[in-house]
């Protein structure tokens, strides 16, 4: 494949990974109002677990167990979910800002464990992740095949999440986001709903991590800095909290802006750091969205449930 097409495929696959993350944060923040600042932590857990599960045995890191790719994805989701359950059980009944503090702490703990536990993760040296199904197509077309696999995962997830939220279950989530006391006064077990959503969303972050690892084929703790979490937040807020298509558009737009700004380095005067410009532009975007179109590119759908076919 030529350079331009190759870049496009790389960009789209990366956008799909972030699209998966955005769908996960949308169920937590967009529909339920849970403030999770630990997206990167679950993302990392998913990436490393999938790498351990599917890799070939090595004395330098945990595993690998040589399991098939889809099994690795499922285990990555499961382990992320278990982490969310352990984390959520004590803190879910606290106020939302405490959840934000706890989750950001969790993400940093995960990253620092990866850095320091070299026997398990190879620490800052990073570890390789296999290319699944790489014998199916000639090597030069592999990235296209993997884009297809990633898109398939995203499509299945999208359908599952749309069906989940456009239901009485989703209506109850919107209710507790709007006013927790009303939800309680009408018999909803608010803590149970919140815990379900924390676990479900975090499983999705784990899935994104696994898809990311097999795409990059090499993961280091530096891929999971707090910045990743905030990029996903911008995607959800800019795209439209509470609208699954909206947050996917947000992921595409923010990722596009992020990659697109690389080309600026050719025109900018020497000495200007593109990394710093990127952050400033993303920050500006967020401010603009909040001021001009607070509901995002696409707002939330008006009717909560489509179960009767509307």
């Amino acid at each position: 494949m030529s350079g331009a097409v190759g870049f496009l495929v790389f960009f789209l696959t990366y956008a799909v990974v972030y699209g998966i993350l955005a769908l996960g944060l949308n169920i937590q923040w967009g529909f339920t109002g849970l403030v999770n600042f630990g997206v990167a932590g679950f993302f990392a857990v998913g990436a490393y677990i999938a790498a351990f599960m599917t890799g070939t045995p090595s004395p330098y890191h945990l595993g690998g167990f040589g399991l098939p790719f889809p099994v690795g994805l499922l285990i990555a989701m499961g382990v992320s979910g278990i982490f969310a359950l352990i984390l959520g059980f004590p803190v879910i009944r606290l106020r939302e800002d405490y959840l934000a503090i706890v989750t950001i702490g969790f993400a940093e703990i995960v990253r620092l464990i990866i850095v320091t536990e070299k026997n398990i993760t190879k620490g800052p040296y990073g570890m390789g992740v296999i290319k699944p199904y790489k014998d199916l197509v000639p090597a030069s077309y592999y990235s296209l095949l993997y884009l297809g696999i990633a898109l398939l995962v995203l499509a299945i997830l999208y359908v599952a999440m749309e069906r989940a939220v456009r239901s009485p279950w989703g209506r109850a989530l919107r209710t507790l986001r709007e006013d927790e006391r009303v939800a309680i006064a009408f018999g909803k077990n608010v803590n149970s709903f919140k815990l379900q959503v924390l676990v479900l969303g975090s499983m999705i972050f784990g899935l994104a991590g696994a898809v990311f690892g097999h795409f990059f084929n090499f993961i280091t703790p530096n891929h999971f800095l707090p910045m990743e979490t905030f990029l996903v937040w911008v995607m959800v807020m800019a795209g439209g909290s509470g609208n699954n298509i909206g947050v996917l558009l947000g992921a595409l737009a923010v990722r596009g802006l992020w990659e697109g700004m690389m080309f600026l380095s050719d025109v900018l005067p020497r000495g200007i750091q593109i990394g710093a410009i990127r952050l400033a532009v993303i920050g500006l975007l967020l401010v603009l969205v909040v001021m001009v179109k607070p509901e995002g590119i696409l707002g939330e759908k008006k009717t909560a449930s489509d179960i009767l076919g509307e």
Partner: protein
Amino acid sequence: MLEVIGLQKSFGGIRAVNGCTFEVERNTITGLIGPNGAGKTTVFNLISGFFSPDGGKIVLSGSRIDQLPAHRVPHLRLARTFQITRELSKMTVIDNLMVAPLDQMGETLFNSWFRIPSVKRQERKIREKALQVLEFLEIPDLKDEYASNLSGGQKKLLEFGRTMMTDPEIILLDEPGAGVNPTLMKKLNGYIERLRTDEGVTFFLIEHDMDLVMKLCDPIIVMNEGKVLAQGTAREIQENRKVLDAYLGG
């Protein structure tokens, strides 16, 4: 129907409810009045489980409810409104109503993925019920409006309608008349009366509008400083020396 026995609740050094005892008889419209700070809303929050009492008992239809988590209380067929309306602003009027019914099968993740026929059947019933409630409250045209776009009075109606969705035996209304114009208030009175006579619903309401209370409620309970000061018919309360003193600060 609802018994409150020796109820106690303190916030820091303030004894908001201090040994409160009364009973709400089945199928009455019982009024709860008293000066500001008498502890009326605290009593409501204790009954509906939002606060847990420091002492005393609350018995609803024969079972103690004072130790139940708040989300279990509605299952004993008690519904409430709030002093300041709590509409779900970014949801439509009909969704505000449809979320209210208890034990909805569709409220599990599993059932939202696998929409078995009985989930849909229940959802259809809930929708019909919501449309009936809007019809009853004479606001059917508002069904697809965002709740945030309603007027203050319409929000009050919506809160009232939401309680109807759960088929309650007892409804607690916290200042249903606050900020409602006289015409709408008259209508609301009519709805309360009709639900009591046609469906046997018991009402327990806090209200500051004395004309309304005297016309609508029998009996009336008067609270002051966290205790019950007096109880009786409208006439008895109006002639009670202690009540006058409490209100006039004598």
